[in-house]
């Protein structure tokens, strides 16, 4: 869920390695067991009814192999796969790198930089729906802000963004970066703040310039957070629905769909829920390795987001 990125990061230091080991040697006694069972029943019930059951149901819906021959014979599906890869690879990596750089900018202790941070967080604080509708309007109309500015600068009529597939895809990716850059900047900002100042002082005494400090001090210390953030963001972005649904709405002619919107349209507009579920399933070969990598990484290092 892309909106899961609206997490409020609240971190407490945990000793690495000690986190979440099964405690086999402890056994609950008598009435305590009853209490423990009563306390976990709500979560187990929610998990079974609303996670396990839908997952199994979805696997069952998308289990017929004919569905996949049908999918791969649909040229729009191939387009969708390409779009999804572009959207995830470019969107996530550009966003993360920018967030890394911008977080360095926000480390300054000047008053105007702090004031700027408040403004900079706005895209994250607003609901995705509101802002993507606004961006959609900027792109779709010949009277929108972008077009007006374009005319003011060049004197000619602005381009029609949602007529070209490349432009519409670029708009999706930019809108996505716009919305989620602040959140990851905050994560990296907190990571940067946790680096002890003495390390920088030592590096400065050894004669390291600002850029050398970034490459040899900041980046190695943040590599782990950066990796976990990228993996997590990759998963969420693979399933990102609102960006494409509202910004380009698949225009022109449904050539800019990503898997989430393609599956949605197959299921709810064209009445092929099985095909939609199969389209979502087809992301599994990409999702599963990333999930395994991420979970192992989280267990090993105890990085919390």
């Amino acid at each position, binding site marked *: 869920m892309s909106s899961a990125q609206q997490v409020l990061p609240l971190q407490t230091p945990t000793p690495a390695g000690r986190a979440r080991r099964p405690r086999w040697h402890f056994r609950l006694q008598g009435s305590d067991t009853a209490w*423990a069972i009563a306390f976990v029943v709500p979560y*187990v019930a929610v998990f079974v009814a609303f996670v396990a059951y839908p997952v199994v149901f979805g696997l069952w819906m998308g289990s017929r192999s004919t569905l996949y021959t049908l999918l791969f014979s649909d040229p729009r599906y191939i387009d969708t796969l390409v779009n999804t890869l572009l959207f995830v690879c470019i969107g996530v990596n550009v966003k993360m790198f920018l967030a890394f750089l911008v977080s360095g900018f926000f480390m300054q202790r000047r008053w105007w930089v702090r004031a700027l941070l408040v403004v900079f967080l706005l*895209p994250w604080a607003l609901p995705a729906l509101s802002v993507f509708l606004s961006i959609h309007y900027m792109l779709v109309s010949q009277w929108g802000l972008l077009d007006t500015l374009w005319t003011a600068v060049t004197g000619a009529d602005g381009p029609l963004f949602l007529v070209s597939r490349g432009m519409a895809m670029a708009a999706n990716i930019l809108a996505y970066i716009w919305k989620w850059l602040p959140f990851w900047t905050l994560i990296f900002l907190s990571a940067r703040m946790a680096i002890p100042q003495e390390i920088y002082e030592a590096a400065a005494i050894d004669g390291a310039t600002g850029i050398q400090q970034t490459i040899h001090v900041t980046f190695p210390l943040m590599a782990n957070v950066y990796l976990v953030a990228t993996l997590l963001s990759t998963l969420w972005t693979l399933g990102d629905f609102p960006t494409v649904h509202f910004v380009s709405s698949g225009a022109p002619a449904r050539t800019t769909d990503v898997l989430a919107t393609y599956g949605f349209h197959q299921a709810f507009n064209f009445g092929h829920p099985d095909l939609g579920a199969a389209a979502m399933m087809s992301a599994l070969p990409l999702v599963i390795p990333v*999930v395994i990598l991420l979970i192992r990484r989280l267990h090993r290092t105890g990085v919390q987001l």
Partner: protein
Amino acid sequence: MSVVARTRRLSPWRYRASRRVGEGAGMLLGIVLIVWSLAPIYNMVVIALSAHDDIFAGTIWPASPTLESFYVVVTEGFWYLERFWHQFGNSFFVGLMTMFLTLLIGSLASFTVGRMRLRNGWLLTNAALMTYVIPASFLAIPFYRIMQIYGLTNHLWAVIAAITTFATPYAIFIFSQYGKSIPMELDESARIDGANPLQIYLYVYLPLMAPALVAVGTYALLLAWNEYLYNFLMLSTPDSMTVAVALAQFLNSDESPWNYMMATAIVYALPPMIIYYMVRRNMVAGLTMGGVKG
């Protein structure tokens, strides 16, 4: 000769000049960031302030800005907005219910796993982790079918169930992390005094978890408020809709009432924006506690 020695010997004039260039570049970057962050928001405000005929004038600022669209939204004066305040209430109901259930289910589960040392509790934590990392939209199609089986379609509880499901894993995480900072001795001494697990949960665990409860509660509330896909799939009549669904309906319209739509979008965005900035202090305090580990 070391670099430090060289930089020390930089003439004061050159030192000041290079500092000014750096400051200038910083300011420039600051301006770029402001324009970048505010452009779509500015666009939204401009359209909301335009009269219907002005939307198509193609100006940077409306010739005669008017609050008419906001008035229409507040008085439910457009047919998509007939039940606006009712839908606003629905959004709040879904948000508050999701918040309450997420806190209850999440804190009970992490209390059992973390404090009572439930055997095989790690299974539960891993199940939660899996739910947290897998994109919710991939479950939308089977979820829709299952809600039909449960008979919950077009019911606010369907959305509450969906969002609670996706918010609880994050709650379990944060609670079990935060819980590690509370000494186990407190539980043990309460137990010696004869408290049962429920009393420990109510009178020892919950009060000490207050900061984490606030953070997670806000998260769940905002997640529910901002969510679109599940709201759209589960709710279809004007009386059951939340604001998100009502707002997106405007896209179906041929009349292009863009100014009403943007005014609605702004009113819809106000509660989460206010909440974000209210809890930002707690958030930043939490952020500074760590991030580089391992």
